[in-house]
């Protein structure tokens, strides 16, 4: 009898015994499921891993297929980058917050822009009314960007910018600020999100239709591969897909499908895969189901490595590696008993670290209510530091590998992700699947099912639908000064009065010409930015040339 056969016999006997006991003392639920509604068995054993092959499924850390991590020593070499997403009000206020965060031991910056900036409108545009400086910092021109990074040496910090439709413009501004600091573009490191497909799917800050949007993205890939070689040119994001209600499997599947679309677009534009693929990065969410989340990250690395090597024929191992940032799950936070959110964030951050993230943002306890206060952000940062320095989980690589449960989850997620990717390929790829509303519909179905589970009590959310208490309204929330909009308008008017208007007009005319040709758009955008053309002026030229995206609305 083989070991497996012996175990199978033992298992059957054990199961019969347990079932019998169950009749008298039933388990808490008839069916146990993960945070993403996948069934969970009573126990996992080697029988769930009969075909397990260590080398091909896991490999060693820093080796194909990178299931165990992209670095050979992971956090023993260097801890993840602790990077809190921040920005509000004017550039001056955000600059103060960044300096505070750096003093508190944060190791990288992450810029939140306000909605007008993200949609390519200046602060004086009618649609910007009431929105200026609200969810991030207002940036109208290079002048604001100079203030934003004042006193922050751009050759020393890495900066992530959550900017998508106008990513090329903000990247150009960052390069121009560096020039003024005497820092060459070659020395810059950081990330632009630059992921338009998930804007169509879930986040909503799109401007242009898919074709010119994909062109802007591949123009950035090409430009950076030569001029800003240490820049992560895209952060292919599952975060917002998950926040919109996707399951863990859908988060990975739709993100990787988007990734495939970008790689295909760049190859079609004539780029060599190994020229741009090493600079592709990812951005995932971390929710509460610890093991499922860890498995999700591990599965995502394995799937991407195979796609890049086997589907796209990439030769450089750096092209195979899925490097990612993680943010804890905003939609899991409750407005009720907000201190409980600290615990949720801890679990989620732990999942991200056990899953091998390269950088991490931990949400603050008050984010279901408002932008976070300084004190709340400090607790969130301390949460990461306690995990890093006190918990011991960073001392060895991928400590959950070999767990029968975690490996089974990893395999299942991989299988289901591949099924989704096949389905999206059959629809003609991610762009087509988005245009047909397929991806959005899948996410909405999951979001609705989740809400119903919460409302009928099948999903317990502590403090929300169980263990409620009577609460007083929260005190001391951060409020953005409503005068920000006016101040920003005045700054903009002063800028326009003081700049060389002829130079601006000519730079915008060159940009228009480039837009109607097939030239790379980065050089003319950089030229316009240097002359203090505003973000709104630049995007307005591109809107006229490219048109605007009109989504298919459904629910």
């Amino acid at each position: 009898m083989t070991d497996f056969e012996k175990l199978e016999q033992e298992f059957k006997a054990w199961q019969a015994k347990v079932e019998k006991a169950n009749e008298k003392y039933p388990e808490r639920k008839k069916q146990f499921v993960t945070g993403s509604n996948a069934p969970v068995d009573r126990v996992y054993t080697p029988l769930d891993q009969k075909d397990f092959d260590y080398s091909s499924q896991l490999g060693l850390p820093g080796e194909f297929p990178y299931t165990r991590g992209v670095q050979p020593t992971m956090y023993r070499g260097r801890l993840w980058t602790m990077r809190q997403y921040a920005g509000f009000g004017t550039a001056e206020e955000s600059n103060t917050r960044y300096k505070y965060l750096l003093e508190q031991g944060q190791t990288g910056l992450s810029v939140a822009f306000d909605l007008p900036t993200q949609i390519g409108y200046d602060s004086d545009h009618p649609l910007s009314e009431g929105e200026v400086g609200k969810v991030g910092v207002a940036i109208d021109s290079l002048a604001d960007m100079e203030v934003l990074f004042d006193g922050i040496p751009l050759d020393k910090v890495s900066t992530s910018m959550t900017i998508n439709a106008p990513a090329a413009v903000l990247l150009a501004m960052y390069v121009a600020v560096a020039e003024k600091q005497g820092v060459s573009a070659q020395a810059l490191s950081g990330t632009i999100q630059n992921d338009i497909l998930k804007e169509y799917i879930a986040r909503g800050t799109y401007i242009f239709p898919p074709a010119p949007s994909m062109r802007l993205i591949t123009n950035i890939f090409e430009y950076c591969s030569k001029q800003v070689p240490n820049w992560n040119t895209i952060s292919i994001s599952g975060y917002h897909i998950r926040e919109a209600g996707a399951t863990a499997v859908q988060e990975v599947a739709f993100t990787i499908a988007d990734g495939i679309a970008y790689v295909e677009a760049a190859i079609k534009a004539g780029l060599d895969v190994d020229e741009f693929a090493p600079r592709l990065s990812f951005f995932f969410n971390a929710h509460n189901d610890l093991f499922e989340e860890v498995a999700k990250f591990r599965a995502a690395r394995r799937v991407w490595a195979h796609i890049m090597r086997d589907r796209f024929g990439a030769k450089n191992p750096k092209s195979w590696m899925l490097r990612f940032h993680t943010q804890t799950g905003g939609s899991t936070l409750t407005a009720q008993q907000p201190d409980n959110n600290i615990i949720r964030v801890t679990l989620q951050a732990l999942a991200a670290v056990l899953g091998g993230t390269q950088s991490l943002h931990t949400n603050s306890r008050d984010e279901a209510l408002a932008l976070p206060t300084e004190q709340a952000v400090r607790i969130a940062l301390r949460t990461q530091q306690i995990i890093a320095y006190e918990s011991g989980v960073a001392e060895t690589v991928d400590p959950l590998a070999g767990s029968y449960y975690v490996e089974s989850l990893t395999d299942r997620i991989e299988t289901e992700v591949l099924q989704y990717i096949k389905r999206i390929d059959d629809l003609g790829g991610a762009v087509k699947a988005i245009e047909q509303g397929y991806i959005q519909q899948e996410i909405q179905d999951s979001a609705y099912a989740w809400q119903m589970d919460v409302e009928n009590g099948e999903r317990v959310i502590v403090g929300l639908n169980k263990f409620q208490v009577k609460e007083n309204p929260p005190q001391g929330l951060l409020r953005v000064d409503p005068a920000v909009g006016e101040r920003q308008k005045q700054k903009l008017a002063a800028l326009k009065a003081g700049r060389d208007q002829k130079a601006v007009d000519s730079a915008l005319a060159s940009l228009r010409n480039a837009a109607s040709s097939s030239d790379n758009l980065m050089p003319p955008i950089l030229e316009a930015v240097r002359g203090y053309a505003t973000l709104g002026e630049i995007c307005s030229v591109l809107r006229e040339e490219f048109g605007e995206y009109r989504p298919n609305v459904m629910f």
Partner: protein
Amino acid sequence: MERKIRVLVAKPGLDGHDRGAKVIARALRDAGMEVIYTGLRQTPEQIVSAAIQEDVDVVALSILSGAHNHLFPRVVELLKERGADDVLVFGGGVIPEEDIPFLKSKGIAEIFGPGTPTSKTIEFIRANVKRPLH
């Protein structure tokens, strides 16, 4: 027989978070109402035009950007200007508690914060719809 309640679910402002709006839209539809969802980035003018054109009984506004104090009252004002002040208007999203009295004084009937069950919103509409359903 009572006719179906007609609801416009609308996203004023620039934020793209419409998970809540879509879940609400679907829950109201499942509760037997006729629901129209505007999609993102609607100005108060566009929302009111849609409300009048679609002859709705209810406008449900969802916003997470923080621009509610600016945009919600504008919707009520414009409805009034166009003689549609019998339309029930309420809102939801990330809206600080201290803003609620101001919004109510401007004619927003109710504000539902994060974690509100859809059943509560449905009951609220049924109890407060102003236009006759017969």
